C-alpha cells in the first residue's frame, strides 16, 4: 500500500516535471542559430528546423519527446550531436561524487556540532557551530570557492620575502591544493566502474590516483558543505535538544540506564528522522544547486553541462538535466521513506 502509493506519486511528479520543463525550454529560444551561426540563408535554417522536427505542433513534439523518454532516449545535443544520455552518464557521476563528498564533510562538522549543541547549548562547541552556520549562510558558495582557490592554490607560490633582521627567506611555498581544473590534473581517469574516480581508482588498485581524485574533491566539497551544511547543523541541534527534553529520556535515566546508552538508544535514535530527511533533501538540492561551484572549479558535472546547454538553447540537454535531478530527488525521498519506515514503528501502522 505504502509502496504503491509512493510509486504513483513518483510517476505524477515526474510527468509534471517533464511537462513544465518542456514548456519552459521550448519557450525561451531556439538552438538553430547556435548550431548554424547567423550568417546562413533562410532556406538552410528552414531545412534544419524541419530536420529537428521544430516545425511540428508543440503537442506533437511533446508526444515524440515523451515516447522517446520512456524508452530511455533523452535526445541528442543539437550542438555537439552527441546523445544526451551518453553525456549524462559521464557527467552525472562527477556531480554525484562531489555532492557525496559534500555530505561526508557535512557529516564531519555539521552533525557532530549539532548533536553537541543540542546536548550542551551555550557551550563552546555550540557557539563554534552557530558561528560556522552564520558564516555559511551569509557567503555565496562561488565566492567562498574563489576565496579558497586564491588562498590555498594561488597565494602560496607567490609568498616570497625575506624577514629583515634575522635574514630569513620565506617562501615560495607549493600550492596546497591542485589547480581548479576538474576532477584530475592531466592524468587519465581510472577505468569506469562506478563513475566515482576515488572508488574506481581504488578498485583498479591505484592508490596514487585515488589520492589525486580525493585531493581535487576537497575544495569543492568543503565549499559546498560550508554553504549547505548550516540547515543540517540547526536541524540536528533542534532535534537533539527536543529528544533530550522528552519524558522518556528522563524515565530511561530513572531506570538506571547510563548516559551513553540513553544518548545512543533514545536521544540520537529519536533525533535522527528529521536529520536524515534534510540530508537527503540537501543531496537532491546540490545535484542541481551546485552549478556555480562546478563552474568555479571547472568541474565537468551536470550543472556545468546544463549551463552549456542553456547558453546554446540546447533543449534536450537542459531538459534532461532537469529530469535527472527530479528523478534523483524522488528516488532519494523514496529511500529515506523506506529507512524511516524501518526505523519508526509509528509509521508502520
Amino acid at each position: 500500500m505504502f509502496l504503491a502509493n509512493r510509486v504513483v506519486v513518483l510517476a505524477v511528479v515526474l510527468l509534471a516535471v517533464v511537462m513544465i520543463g518542456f514548456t519552459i525550454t521550448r519557450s525561451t529560444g531556439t538552438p538553430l542559430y547556435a548550431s548554424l551561426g547567423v550568417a546562413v540563408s533562410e532556406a538552410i535554417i528552414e531545412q534544419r528546423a524541419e530536420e529537428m522536427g521544430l516545425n511540428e505542433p508543440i503537442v506533437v513534439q511533446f508526444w515524440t519527446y515523451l515516447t522517446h523518454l520512456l524508452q530511455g532516449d533523452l535526445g541528442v545535443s543539437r550542438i555537439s550531436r552527441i546523445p544526451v544520455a551518453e553525456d549524462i552518464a559521464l557527467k552525472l557521476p562527477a556531480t554525484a561524487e562531489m555532492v557525496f563528498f559534500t555530505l561526508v564533510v557535512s557529516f564531519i562538522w555539521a552533525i557532530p556540532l549539532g548533536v553537541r549543541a543540542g546536548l550542551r547549548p551555550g557551550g563552546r562547541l555550540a557557539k563554534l557551530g552557530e558561528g560556522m552556520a552564520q558564516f555559511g549562510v551569509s557567503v555565496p558558495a562561488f565566492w567562498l570557492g574563489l576565496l579558497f582557490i586564491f588562498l590555498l592554490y594561488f597565494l602560496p607560490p607567490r609568498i616570497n620575502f625575506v624577514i629583515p633582521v634575522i635574514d630569513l627567506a620565506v617562501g615560495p611555498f607549493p600550492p596546497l591544493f591542485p589547480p581548479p581544473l576538474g576532477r584530475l590534473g592531466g592524468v587519465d581517469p581510472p577505468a569506469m566502474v562506478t563513475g566515482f574516480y576515488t572508488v574506481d581508482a581504488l578498485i583498479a588498485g591505484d592508490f596514487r590516483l585515488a589520492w589525486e581524485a580525493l585531493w581535487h574533491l576537497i575544495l569543492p566539497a568543503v565549499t559546498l558543505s560550508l554553504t549547505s551544511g548550516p540547515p543540517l547543523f540547526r536541524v540536528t541541534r533542534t532535534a537533539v535538544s527536543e529528544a533530550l527534553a522528552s519524558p522518556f529520556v528522563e524515565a530511561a535515566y530513572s531506570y538506571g540506564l547510563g548516559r551513553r546508552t540513553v544518548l545512543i538508544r533514545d536521544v540520537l535514535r529519536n533525533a535522527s528522522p528529521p536529520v536524515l530527511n534534510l540530508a537527503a533533501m540537501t543531496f537532491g538540492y546540490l545535484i542541481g544547486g551546485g552549478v556555480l561551484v562546478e563552474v568555479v572549479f571547472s568541474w565537468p558535472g551536470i550543472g556545468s553541462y546544463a549551463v552549456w546547454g542553456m547558453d546554446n538553447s540546447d533543449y534536450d540537454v537542459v531538459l534532461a538535466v532537469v529530469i535527472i535531478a527530479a528523478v534523483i530527488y524522488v528516488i532519494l525521498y523514496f529511500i529515506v521513506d523506506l529507512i524511516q519506515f524501518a526505523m519508526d514503528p509509528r509509521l508502520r501502522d
Partner: protein
Amino acid sequence: MNSGPADGALLTLSGVEVTINTLSGPVHPLQGVDLEVFPGETVGLVGESGCGKSMTLRSILRLMPPGGAITGGTVEWQDRSVLDLDTDELQTYRGSEVAMIYQNPVTALDPMLSVERQIVDAFKANREVLDGAPEEFAREALRDLEFGNPDAILKRYPHQLSGGMAQRVNIALALACGPSLILADEPTTGLDMTTQVRVLDLLEQQVHARNAALLFISHDLRAVARVARNIGIMYAGRVVEFGPRERILTEPSHPYARALLECVDLRTDERPRSIPGLVPRMTEVYPLCAFRERCVSRMAVCDEEPLPRHELGGRRRLLCHLGPGHD
C-alpha cells in the same frame, strides 16, 4: 534545620532546596523539603500544582531539568548521602534502590522501541548477570502486571498501547531492578476512572508483594488518602504538615491543610470550594510563611519571624506559627 537521618529510615530529605536557572531568571521550586520514608510504608504528598511535588521526587533521584540543581539540604539513602554518589553509584541507586513511575505513561516510553526492548534494557541496566534469558524476565514482569498475553504485548510499540496498558508497562519498568522505594508521580492522572482504580490497585499490590516502600504524589487528596498511610501536605516548596493519614484527614493543624481538606470535603456533597488568594510565585524565596497572604489565621508574628518547626511525636510535624492544638 538538619536533624540527620531518622533512625531506620530508608530515605531522609532534610531542608532540600532546588534552584532552576531559566532564561527569565532563577526559580526556586523547593525551599526546604523535609521528608522521611521508612521501609515498606506508603507515603503520600498532596499539594496544588507548582508546589514542588514532582521536583521533590526528581531531587530524590537527582534528576534535574536543564539549568536545575540541588542547592541546599541533604538527601540520605539509608546511611549514604545521595548527593555525594558518583556517576556509577548513582546509576546503581537509580533503578535498583529507587525507581519512578511517571505521570504520562505513553510519553514516558520511547516511541521507537518495542516494549520488550525497553523492559529487557531496564532489566539489564543494573544487573551484571541474569540467571536466565532477559526475555523470560520481561515476560514474567508483564505477567505480574496482569497482562493476559505477555508475548503479544512484548512485541508492541508504545503507540499501540492504551493508557492503562502503558502505565502497567511503566510499573514493570520501575520494578525491573527490584527497588526498595517506588516514586509515583501522579501515576493515574491521565487515565479514565475505572482504569485508575485498577492501575492503583495493581501498583499497591505489586509494591507490597515486594516489601517496597511507595512515595505517591498527587493533587488529588482522595487518591492519596486511598493509598497512603502517612500524608504530607506541600505548599510553596515545603512540606508544611506531615502525619498519619487519620490525623491529617480528620484534624489537620496547618491552615492550608484545613483549607485543602475543605475544598475536597469527602463527607459532604457540596460543590468543592477554592482557597482564596493566589498560588505563590516560585520565582521568589520565602523565608517567612508563604501561605500567610491567604491564611485565615494570620498573626503579627507571621510577618516577622521565619517558620518554626514543631515535631509533635508519632511522626507528626508542622511548619506553622499557630503550633498544634490551637482551636
